[in-house]
């Protein structure tokens, strides 16, 4: 026991010493280090990969042009990307490590509230500017009742997003009866409530709300219930495997509603193939599509649609990541350097047009993006059916084609 104890003491002391020796690599010369901890593996890997591609694309472009200009010189950006494997605890730990060990002067965010919020908290603790996207702004704001200090978010407002399904449904003939499918994840709970509130305002009736545990597989009783209630419209806030499970069960039970909205689950690239064709005609909110009127639409579609598998939300996520990287670079320029307080203030003053649209922050440290509605077509692209003004774009194919 004495020997063991000595060994333990030695081990602890050595690790302490070893750590005090390596106080981080830091940046070479006047390079600006920006860190990001994103989910490249795990269930959120489908979204984390394109967002990091967007960061990298913007950084490469900025560096190719010489870097960010301030203080009379151009500074290159070094982007450090880490994989948090969709684990919130790991995301927070990596965000800390990126600042403390890699000496990142600012952080770009991951995707979705479960990962963005822990990283945002770290940023506020460490007083390091943090800029994220793909995180609905009410969820973001709700996590900090007293307000954020250094964390900023660019994404849609849940309230506006949960109206687009009804606006799109107005474009077709339905019986105005809606069934909701929501899981127990944070967004399922929040959006479900908003749809319940919004439906009567648009003259729709929620006839059933099916709630289930995350990663549910068997939807037979829920779909039977929805079919029995005769709803023409299905709105779901689910993850991709649940979306597939629901569609298969709908096909099996011969339930083919006029309109199906699958938020998040239906925002997966290659959705029509993944669902074996059942997803053809499924709609989902989007923040990037052809014909939306964004300045660089064509540039991104030409450059990335092929590698990313079509014009879809993954491409939208990439453009989001690309845009907030530019917001950060512009803020560094405006702040004349990387002083945390000044940089965070400069981010807050952002007011301009970016690839993803106009970005301007409001009180809650968030910049709302307006969403549109899109529908999956046979080329595995998401086609805009409801535009930014809430008006019809490409006509909606109804009833859902894949279930016929």
């Amino acid at each position: 026991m004495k020997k063991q104890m000595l060994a333990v003491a030695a081990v602890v002391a050595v690790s302490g010493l070893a750590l005090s020796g390596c106080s981080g690599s830091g940046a070479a010369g006047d390079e600006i280090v920006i860190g990001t901890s994103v989910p490249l593996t795990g269930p959120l890997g489908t979204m984390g990969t394109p967002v990091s591609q967007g960061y990298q694309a913007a950084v490469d472009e900025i560096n190719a042009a010489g870097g960010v200009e301030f203080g009379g010189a151009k500074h290159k950006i070094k982007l450090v990307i880490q994989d948090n494997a969709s684990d919130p605890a790991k995301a927070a730990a990596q965000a800390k490590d990126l600042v403390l060990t890699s000496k990142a002067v600012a952080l770009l965010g991951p995707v979705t509230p479960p990962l963005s919020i822990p990283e945002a908290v770290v940023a506020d603790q460490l007083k390091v500017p943090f800029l994220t996207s793909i995180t609905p702004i009410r969820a973001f704001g709700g996590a900090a009742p007293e307000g954020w200090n250094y964390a900023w978010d660019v994404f849609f407002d849940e309230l506006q997003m949960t109206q687009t399904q009804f606006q799109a449904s107005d474009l077709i003939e339905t019986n105005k009866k809606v069934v909701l499918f929501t899981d127990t994840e944070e967004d399922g709970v929040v959006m479900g409530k908003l749809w319940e509130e919004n439906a009567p305002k648009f003259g729709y009736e929620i006839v059933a709300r099916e709630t289930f545990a995350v990663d549910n597989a068997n939807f037979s009783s829920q779909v039977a219930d929805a079919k029995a209630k005769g709803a023409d419209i299905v709105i779901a806030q689910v993850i991709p495997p649940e979306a597939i499970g629901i569609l298969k069960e709908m096909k099996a039970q011969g339930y083919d509603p006029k309109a199906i909205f699958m938020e998040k689950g239906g925002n997966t690239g290659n959705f029509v193939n993944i669902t074996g064709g059942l997803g053809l005609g499924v709609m989902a909110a989007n923040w990037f599509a052809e014909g939306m009127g964004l300045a660089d639409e064509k540039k991104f579609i030409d450059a990335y649609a092929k590698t990313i598998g079509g014009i879809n939300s993954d491409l939208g996520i990439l453009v989001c990541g690309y845009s907030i990287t530019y917001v950060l670079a512009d803020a560094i320029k405006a702040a004349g350097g990387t002083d945390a307080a000044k940089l965070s203030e400069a981010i807050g003053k952002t007011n301009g047009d970016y690839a993803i649209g106009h970005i301007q922050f409001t009180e809650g440290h968030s910049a709302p993006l307006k969403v549109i509605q899109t529908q999956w077509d046979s080329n595995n692209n998401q086609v805009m059916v409801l535009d930014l003004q809430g008006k019809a774009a490409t006509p909606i194919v109804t009833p859902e084609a894949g279930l016929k």
Partner: protein
Amino acid sequence: MIRQIFGFIAKFRDPFTYGTAVVVAAVLYLTASSLDRGQQNDLTSLFLLMTLALAWNLVGGYGGQFSLGHSIFVGVGSYATAVILTLLGWPLIPTMIIAAVMSALIGLLLAYPLLRLRGPYLAVGSLGMAVAAYGWMINWDFTKASQAYAMPKEAQVDFATMYQFATVLLLIAIVSIVALVRSPLGLRLVALRDNELGAASIGVKRVRTLLPVWALSGLLTGAMGAVYAVQQGTLTVDGTFNIQFSLDAAIICVIGGLGTLSGPFIGAIIIYFLRKYSAEYQNYALLIEAVVLVIVVRFFPAGIVGLISKGFRAIVHRRAAAQK
């Protein structure tokens, strides 16, 4: 039980062991200000990982009960801290102590039925409890269900203090575990693990031996959860009631050496630095970690401690042989 506790305290005799622990901890504690924030944060996370593994090792290593339910203790410790601070506004340290005690009570509550199970049944039974607890928390509005639970601003502490919390916690864990393992209770625990029938035949009672061990393990893991909550600043069910905590603890102990005192330390250092430095390989990081895990366990199934003691014995033997 009370008699056991007193018996336990009476065993605090050996000044050397405890002295070493206290001196090392005191040095670490007092040098807090000489470290930069990065080092303070690294050591805080490392010490928390060590505490988690030490506490698990008590049940999983010395007790031979492969628990996959320890995430419950992390969750209870962290959420209890957050809820008490928010609703009752107590000072931080008493809150963390109460949270740890609550976790110990949960430990007793879980252990009582679990102790009927053995081997893989216990592993799966405890895993079932952990998944059920997760399923409950994700729906419980009192703790904001699946939404983030923000710690109140008063609970924010700087990195140096955080590091000191973790150091003190690690010291408490070491001292209490050494004391328990060397007490008659500890001997009964190991006897029960190595030969249950034999132990029973000399009058060792299974439940009476294991309950206090689970309670201490729950207490320490809960305390770790409480400190972790303060470190995190905001809680989610996914980030606390996550079975990854049980898996991490088990892996650390297996890599280091199950049922040894230094095993959890060595394992924690390996895992912590492996994660820290493989992170830059992005989606290959997990692959690297898993491959290292498989290789280490494949070639050193008794853990690094087993390897060292084997090597040590080999040298001693060779010397003895040479002298002949």
